[in-house]
Each structure stands twice: as C-alpha cells, then as structure tokens.
C-alpha cells in the first residue's frame, strides 16, 4: 500500500512538473517536506531554530506543502532508518540537520534518487544530495568586536560544546575580532562536552566568571550562561536565538540562526523543478546568520562600530579570517593580506593566538 501510494504520488508529481511546469503544483497533492532534528524541539536552541524554519515554510506555502519532522534522532544506526522512513513516506525533500546524519543521508539518497536531500554542516554531496551551513563565525566576529571593546578585565569567556571545526572557527573569529580592537584581550575556552545541558553550561559560565571573565560567549544551546551572567552583572552573548528575555541587562546580542529563507527557497526550487545539488554556505549576506538587537545599554560607539563591521562583512569588504593570523604558539599561519580559504575554514582545528584552552590531539 505504501509503495503504490508513493509511486502514485511520484506519477502525479512527474505529470505536474512535466506537463504543466511549476504552475500546477498547487492543484496536485501538497509537496511533502521532511525534517530530521538531532535534539528535541523543546531545547530552545539549535533544533528549535530549525523547527522555526519549518514553521516558516508552512506559513509561506500554506496548504501547498505538508511538513513532517522527527525530533531527538540519535546520530547512529537509528538515523538511517528514520531518514529512509521519511523518504518512503513520500517526502519530496528531506532536510537532515546535524553533522552526524551525513553518512546515513548519503546512503538513503542513493536508494531514493527521486527524492531531494539536504544535509546541514556536512561535506558529502550527490546528484540529489545538497549541503548547507551558515557562516556563524561572521556573527561571532562582530560579537567579538563589541566584547573586545566592553571588557575591562581583558578576559573573555567562551563556553564551547565539542572540539569540531564549526566551534573552533567561532572561537577564532571571536578572538581575532576582540584582539583587533583590544590587543590585550584573551579568550578562555571551557568545553562542556555537550550541546545542551543547562546545568553544565551554567557551571562553565560560573567557572569563567570566577576567573575574571567579564564578557561571555557560548556555543551551546541553553540560555543558562546568559542567566548566570545576569546574576553576576557581566555581559553575555546568546546563541541560536535572541535570548534577551533571559538576561535583560546582560544580553549584549545573540548570533541567531535563521534557516527560514533557505528552507523556503529550496522548497520553492523543488516546486519549480529548478532544484540542484548545491553547496551553500551563507552568512550575513543571505540573512542565514543575524545578530539579535544590541542591548539598549550598549555604549553607542561600541554598537556603531559593531554594526559597521557587520555591514562590511555583509558587503564582502571584510573577511574575518584575514592575515596576519598567528596560532597559539605565536607562529604566523596566515600572511598579511591573505584570507583563509573556505576549504581550510571547513576543517579548521587550530586556535589563534590569544585563545587559552586546548583541543584533543
């Protein structure tokens, strides 16, 4: 029964796209869009933001689409089954939103050549498998400018999840920016080895503040560090969504993930029959990364400087990873005027000068 329904749907779609172009997609069955999340939607962090993107798709297309999601999918043997189930259930495009879903997505993509797959933050692509990720480091660079200006102790804190290139890029961008305006600034990194554990994140925040840190950044999901900063009266930079409600006085800004534009574009492309396997890495320029409004208490000059840097990055006039860049040992790794290529950014696993903390060797 499942098989006939799927082939039936495929037939309808083939007719719709083949005979009438994109126009009649409305008249046919709704386009089915699937999402796989690594955490629960209720994490109010990474998976929550992806789900906001899904809701934006529903809002934009109305009854022309039908979305489905599976949350809290473990990155192991289960992922492949869930992705395959989504494909077998007739979804036309499936977004798998975590790095650990890469190989399972690639395997299922081969088995369902007619279904479009989109994998976030990975590097495997195929005829029907596209990848997408966001240049969060651009947001972290702007936050670093403000942090470098605002710190009085010259100690900045960074609550980090796992030592993967994505996180390392963020730490480095933040540090480079802070030191570009305040060469004395140093960034202390604490790994909590979790994406999402409010208690542990709070403990890391407290440890950093006890060491004299007066601006906190985080690459973990919960608002616990922002709350801890609020209690101690230091600045905090939120993650994934605007967390200002959790720290009216402390919340400087936040690096907001906004997937809605991308998801709407890609669903539209499937409807139009123009979908291609692409490698997307958007930042400020496509609003995939945004900054939450700066705290009203932010000094005007600091805010103006940060916003101007944001604009320069948006206009591609400034690249956060422009040399000279030294590594932790003080060795120059990127010569003056050179920028780090996307390929090298993708696999970045070294810290820049000014970062205090270590990575597994």
């Amino acid at each position, binding site marked *: *029964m*499942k098989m006939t329904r799927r082939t039936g749907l495929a037939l309808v779609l083939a007719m719709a796209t083949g005979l009438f172009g994109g126009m009649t997609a409305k008249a046919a069955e709704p386009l089915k869009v*699937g999402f796989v999340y690594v955490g*629960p939607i209720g994490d109010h962090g990474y998976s929550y933001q992806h789900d906001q993107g899904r809701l934006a798709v529903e809002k934009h297309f109305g009854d022309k689409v039908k979305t*489905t*999601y*599976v*949350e*809290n999918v*473990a*990155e*192991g*043997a*289960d992922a*492949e*089954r*869930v992705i395959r*189930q*989504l494909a077998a*259930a007739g979804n036309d495009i499936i977004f798998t939103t975590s*790095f*650990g879903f890469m*190989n399972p997505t690639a395997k299922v993509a081969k088995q369902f050549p007619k279904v479009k797959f989109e994998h976030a933050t*990975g*590097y495997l692509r195929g005829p029907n498998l596209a990848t997408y990720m966001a240049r969060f480091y651009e947001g972290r660079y702007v936050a670093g400018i403000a942090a470098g200006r605002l710190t009085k102790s010259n100690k900045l804190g960074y609550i980090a999840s*796992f*030592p*993967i*290139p994505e996180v390392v890029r963020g730490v480095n961008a933040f540090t480079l920016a802070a030191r570009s305006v305040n060469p004395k600034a140093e960034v202390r990194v604490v790994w909590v*080895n979790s994406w999402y554990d409010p208690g542990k994140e709070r403990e890391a925040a407290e440890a950093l503040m006890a060491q004299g840190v007066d601006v906190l950044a985080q690459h973990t999901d919960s608002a616990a560090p922002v709350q801890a900063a609020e209690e101690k009266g230091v600045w905090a930079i939120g993650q994934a969504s605007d967390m200002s409600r959790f720290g009216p006085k402390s919340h400087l800004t936040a690096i907001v993930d906004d997937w809605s534009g991308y998801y709407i574009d890609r669903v539209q492309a499937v409807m139009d029959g123009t979908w291609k396997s692409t490698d997307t890495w958007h930042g400020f320029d496509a609003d995939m990364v945004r900054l939450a409004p700066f705290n009203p208490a932010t000094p005007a000059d600091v805010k103006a400087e940060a916003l101007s840097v944001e604009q320069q990055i948006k206009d591609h006039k400034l690249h956060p990873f422009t040399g000279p860049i030294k590594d932790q040992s003080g060795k120059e790794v990127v010569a003056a005027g050179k920028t780090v290529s996307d390929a090298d950014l*993708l*696999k*970045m*696993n070294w810290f820049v000068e000014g970062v205090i903390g270590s*990575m*597994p*060797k």
Partner: protein
Amino acid sequence: MALHLELRPEPSRAMLFVAPMLAIALTVATGGVLFAALGFSPLPALKVFFLSPLGDLYGISELLLKATPLAIIAVALALGFRGNVWNIGAEGQLIMGAVASGGVALALYDVSGYWVLPVVLLAGVAGGALYAGIPAFLRIRFHANEILTSLMLNYVATLFLAWLVHGPWRSPEGYNFPESRMFTDSALMPVLLEGTRLHVGALLAPVVALIAWVILSRSFLGFQIKVIGMTPAAGSYAGFGPKRVIAFTLMFGGGMAGLAGAMEICGPIGQLVPTVSPGYGYTAIIAAFLGRLHPFGILLAALLLALTYIGGDAAQISLGVPLAVTQVFQGMILFFLLACDVLIRYRVRLAARPSLGGAA
C-alpha cells in the same frame, strides 16, 4: 472494594500467556483514548504504531536489526540479575567494545581477508568483557558496589570514545569532523537480506540466548547463580563464594555488550562516531526484566521494545504525533506489561475490606 492479592502456590501456566494478552488489550484501549484525546484518530494511530513497522520485509528487517543488540545484551545481563549482580554498565561496556573493535578495524584498514571480521568482533567482546572486569575486580577485591562503579564507568566510556574520535582516531579525510574512517568491507558485517541493513549478527541473538539458557539450566555455574540469587548467604554455606559468579556474570554481560557494540559499528554505522548507541545498554535492563529474566522471554521482550521505538518514529512521521506523546505511550505499554505479570503469580480478588494492595 479493593484489590486483594493472593500468592499462588505455583505460577499459573495459563496466565503466562493471558497476562501479555491482557496487557495488549489494556494498551490498545488506553492508547486509543490517549490518541483520541490528543486529536488523532485512535485506530489509524495504533495501526501505525504497532503494525506499520511490520508491514513489509524491510520493516521487519529493521525491527530485527534494532532488537538484536537489545536481546544480546539483555540475555547476558539477566544472568547477573539472577545472581544478584547488578551490572548497570552495559552502555559503557558496549562503547568500549565498539572502541576495541573499531581500533582493530582501523589498524587492519589496509588488510583484507575473511579472518578480519571475526578478529574485529572478538576484539569487541574482549573490550567489553575487560571493561566489565573493572567493576568485577573492584567488587571482589574491595567490595565496591557494582551499581555505582559500572554506572559511573558508562560516562567515562562515552568521554573516552569522544576523545578518540575528536582526536587521535579522527579520519584523515574527514575535514576534522568527529568520525573515524569508514571501515573497509572486510571489517563489515555481511548483510543477510539484500537491500536491507539486517546483518548476520541477528542470527547471533538466538545463539546467545541458547548459550545463556544452557548455562543457566544445565551447568553448575548456572546452579550457583540461581542459589546465590535466592539467598546470598546460602552460596557461602554451600561451599562456593560468590566471587566466581560475580566475575563471570559481569564479564559475560560486558563481553556481550561489547559484541553488540562491535556489531553496531561494523554493521549499520560502518565507522566510529561519537554516538554508537541510543542507550541500548539501559534499555536492555528493561528488556531483561520484561522477559522475566528468561533467555527466550527476553528475545520476545527485545522485539517488543524495538517495535515501540520504531513505532514511535513511524507515528511521528505518518501522523505528526510528537515524540513526547510516543514516550508517554511507551511508558504506559511497559507499565501494563509489568503490571499484568501479577496475574501469573497471584490470584487477584476483589475484597470488600480495604487493603493496601489496592490503596497503594
């Protein structure tokens, strides 16, 4: 009016089969009400949850794939539970089995041959058994309670695997992402059914159950386990200390958990990644008791548990039932199954006199 329980002189044979049926009936009834109350049509929802995973050969292959590690671990843990040895560390032993077998698979990366996979799997067994040897040693030598040691070692194992895949064992072609290389074909489990992920490991589950059954019912060691389980003191009166039982049951549990871990990474996953198990080591504890600590009962329990997980996914996909609701439903299924077991050993009467059995 209150429930009154009367211990049966003999467990009821009829109830052995009636009890699960009653549990299923209760599950269907309350599940229907639950789904209806949340605005889902009850019958289609139940059908998706329980029947859709069994709808085709592929679905059944996935069910067996998921039930295999649960069954293998639970059967082995049950031996310990029967002998009052509380190994809560199967999750860590599974991970260490995966680490050991993954290490061998990576070391033999350029080697091919029929012997590679058996060596890799044996390394998994050894890794899990040795890791379980730590709580066994600490219990025997220092009387350290294995509930604590084995549980704490789960976290240590998780962090150890994380360190390996973020650091030394990271794939050189993987852009510094936390994953090892994909294993070569010689280290991968042969697939049983073409087009599915079901591998030969599924055949091992009944074999392990049979071995456990033979140990339990036909060997002196099994006799010792049962005696110690009934009264810990009796073991020492009878002239054998529980040391042998502690060491054997912990390391057998660890070895089988390690085997399960090895088969996960050499089977459906194909490489070492930070998450090799969605908590099989914990779920297996439920499977062991749901199967009434009997090897063959556990096989059924593992299948049922696997079905509730896969059914939960299916309900999310086909009907948009949130994960939270599928978890609530899963908890209810377990409650009913466990509760209905009361009928096997007790006669339930309605008594006019209030008794705490019902008031509780």
